[in-house]
């Protein structure tokens, strides 16, 4: 090989990176995905998707006018979890439930005072939930029992001194779902930027015919791949910083870890995310196929198999194994650690290593599959 004909040349790489950066700056869709989409997703996950129960319409059927019954009804009204609709008959409550205006109702029976005095604790009141929304029905049942339990405890407290169990939740004292949803949402955003954007990259060059002209120059495959990745890597980090800043300031999710650790973790995640996108792009050669593949193999697993919405420990064993090849799984864990706990490097480092390893595999595959020919 003649001098200057080596397979890697900084000048060529610099030229490609400059071109890619100019394209990023001129392409409004990139700005939209990298900067507007995170804001929309964060808004969605903090306001629209909430796993907390708050102001759920609950019917309270009061069939007994005694002091105790009145006091229990008041206890229901007093919690922020329920918006109480006072009712007189079961019939009225059942109608409202069927009409979808109530998520459940509680019946305080006629013989409530008698049951209470007899020391009966089971079947004191009846709780009815709307089984067509199982999640909410569960919440209604559990919270209603909680309210009754606390009310009983308070009454007992004034009479005798029975032991009271007061729950405490570590890391997220108010059990606010936003605090673990927002880190998960950030992982989704980064998956979209990393995998979806990069999946379109090489495919776009094939589609527009620019790859053919590029292939006929001395440029090498490594330079083509690196020239695409580096600008998008930086773009990803910037988008991550902006999204985190938003989470901390606007959405008031506390970040317990350091910004440096956050950057390091994000950088580690971008390696497999971009690598996966590039691999899809190299194989697909067509933006439509690439976008579909990126959604199916990048976005959906990041959503369902990362532990962001569904806990990995409660998945069937084969699916649990599958989650190990989803880079977002490690990223979600790292982000939740950083946001809820802090810089616990013993937890972060193994996950970072796993992400880098996955990234390496994706890159080697992409490098093998991208040839400098049109065959």
């Amino acid at each position, binding site marked *: *090989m*003649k001098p*200057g*004909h080596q*397979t890697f*040349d900084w*000048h*060529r790489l*610099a*030229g*490609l990176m*400059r*071109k890619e950066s*100019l*394209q990023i700056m*001129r*392409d409004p869709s990139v700005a939209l995905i990298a900067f507007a989409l995170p804001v929309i997703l964060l808004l969605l996950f903090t306001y629209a998707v909430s796993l907390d129960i708050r102001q759920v319409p609950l019917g309270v059927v009061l069939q007994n006018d005694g002091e105790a019954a009145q006091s229990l009804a008041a206890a229901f009204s007093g919690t922020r979890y329920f918006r109480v609709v006072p009712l007189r008959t079961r019939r009225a409550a059942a109608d409202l439930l069927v009409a979808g205006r109530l998520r459940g109702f509680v019946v305080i029976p006629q013989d409530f005072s008698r049951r209470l005095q007899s020391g009966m604790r089971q079947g004191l009141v009846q709780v009815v939930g709307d089984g067509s929304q199982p999640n909410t029905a569960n919440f209604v049942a559990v919270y209603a029992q909680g309210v009754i339990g606390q009310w009983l405890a308070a009454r007992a407290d004034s009479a005798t001194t029975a032991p009271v169990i007061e729950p405490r939740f570590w890391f997220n004292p108010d059990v606010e779902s936003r605090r673990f949803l927002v880190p998960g949402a950030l992982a989704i955003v980064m998956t979209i930027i990393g995998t979806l954007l990069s999946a379109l990259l090489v495919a776009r060059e094939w589609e*527009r*015919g*620019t*790859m*053919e*002209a*590029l*292939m*006929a*120059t*001395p*440029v*090498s495959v490594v330079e083509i791949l690196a020239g695409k990745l580096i600008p998008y890597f930086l773009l990803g980090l910037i988008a991550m910083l902006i999204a985190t800043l938003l989470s901390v300031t606007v959405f008031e999710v506390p970040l317990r870890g350091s910004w440096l650790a956050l950057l390091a973790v994000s950088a580690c995640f971008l390696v497999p995310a971009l690598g996966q996108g590039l691999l899809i792009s190299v194989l697909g050669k067509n933006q439509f196929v690439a976008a579909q593949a990126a959604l199916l193999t990048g976005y959906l697993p990041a959503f369902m198999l990362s532990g962001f919405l569904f806990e990995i420990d409660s998945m069937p064993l084969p699916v649990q194994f599958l989650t190990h090849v989803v880079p977002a799984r490690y990223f979600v864990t790292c982000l939740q650690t950083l946001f809820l706990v802090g810089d616990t490097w013993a937890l972060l480092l193994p996950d970072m290593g796993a992400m880098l390893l996955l990234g390496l595999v994706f890159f080697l595959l992409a490098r093998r599959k991208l040839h*400098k*020919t*049109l*065959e």
Partner: protein
Amino acid sequence: MNTAEVAIPTQDAGAQPAIRLELVSKRFGAREALKSVSATLARGRLTGVVGPDGAGKTTLMRLMAGLLKPDQGQIRVSGLDTVQDADDLHFVTGYMPQRFGLYEDISVIENLRLYARLRGLASGEQSELFARLLDFTRLAPFQERLAGQLSGGMKQKLGLACALMGEPEVLLLDEPGVGVDPVSRQELWRMVDALTSDGMAVIWSTAYLDEAERCAEVLLLEQGQLAYAGAPEGLTRRLHGRSYHLSSPQGDRRSWLAQALELPQVCDGVIQGEGLRVVLRQGQDLAPLADLASRAASTMTPVPPRFEDAFVDLLGGGPGGKSVLAEHFPAVPRHEGATVSCRGLTRRFGSFVATDHVDFDIRQGEIFGLLGPNGAGKSTTFRMLCGLLSPSSGEARVMGHDLARAVGAAKRQLGYMAQKFSLYGLLSVQQNLAFFAGVYGLSGAAKSERIDEMVHIFQLEDHLAASPDSLPFGIRQRLALACALMHRPPVLFLDEPTSGVDPITRREFWTHINGLVHKGVTILVTTHFMEEAEYCDRVALMVQGRVIALDKPDALKSQVADAAMPDPTMEQAFIRLIERVGASKETT
């Protein structure tokens, strides 16, 4: 421009050929794209890779650029093997793909910068080189413009500039003349001439046979095989004394052509403006043709043979003059007034006026051509006439139906054949025919009868179960025409119907069209292919949204004829007319 620094010195020109092809074969699946091609291409020369679409031109160009590997045989470019020395090969070759391969969303100068870096030019050398290339390509005033906003011709020049970066010894240009108007095409020729005279080997692939005549040497490809290699004159010389021009025959020139083509002595014949151009078979008697000419009260004069005559002769001559299609097609009832008309037809896209107050009337049984460079407004006008786009102002009528009010009625009166043939690749030939018959409202016995008729006329019997995509170009074109004519429309619209088509298929196609016109069908053709313009009765030349000239092809030619150019070709006339508009604009 002085290209001495761009091109390599010529001293080793004799030592080594630019490219040597040895028994090169390439197949894609079951299709053999190239079959045992051997040739030697010299330095300092323009070599044309000539042939119709699907002949294997692009495959050969990509093989020479090292983008494909030959299945058999060997290719050496400047002594480098395209497979083993692929990395070094890209330093000595410049390659311009058929599709514009540069980045449309970055500027002209940024594209140059990118390619300078990819070809390893230090930034110190760049500015001087860019200035020279921009001057050479006359792109200097547009260097800050985004490449996507350049015209077709300017894009090709930019592609050429990028391919010239890094002083290649061999320049490979894949169909640089496609989508380029005649004015820009001339400039490309000028640049290529300058490069070859400095010792560079330039390989120019083309489907236009008139371009082949400008090359020093040609490789003529036909269905993957090398049909001829050598100077174009070597091929045309064989035709010496066999080509004749018959001036304005009395009556319908198309019927005279059909009669001439039916003579056993005649190898080939085409309409040329008002006259005919006829080629005799080798060693055949001239008398029957001379007799036909005297019956037609036409003067017969020998003319120099063209490359295309030679190609048709090489392929065994063109088809006869009878169209089975026209024989089956019922005569269209007489229609009073214009069959297609535009009145002040205008279409704006934002502030850009794509079609600007266009007026014309097409009579029944006329072939009317809409000519113009890319972006002149041909397609926009055409789409409005098809009812695919509504006019901003003005009016368009087909068979008296206003396209603004009665789109459905107007559409039923017209057949449309698109350049890319709107056939469904996932349906078989039979299913395509059935689909189009259904779309045009045929059903039951009438439908199957019409389909059988089309299958018979276009000889599609053997291909009914095949997918259109797997068929040769010529058969696909027949199928597309069959689909467009399924409902026997009185008006037929053709969008660049025979650009890039091999000459035999093209003649067959025009024989059908001539036959249809005889039955009273009105034809509207859009094209930037000059050959097609010759078949038209009248031609409207569009530039920047306006019709700048509208007349018979011969009248347009004589409009620009002068002492320096007594007998201009259609292309020369086109260039002159466009230049006149440009000149009058500059003076106002």
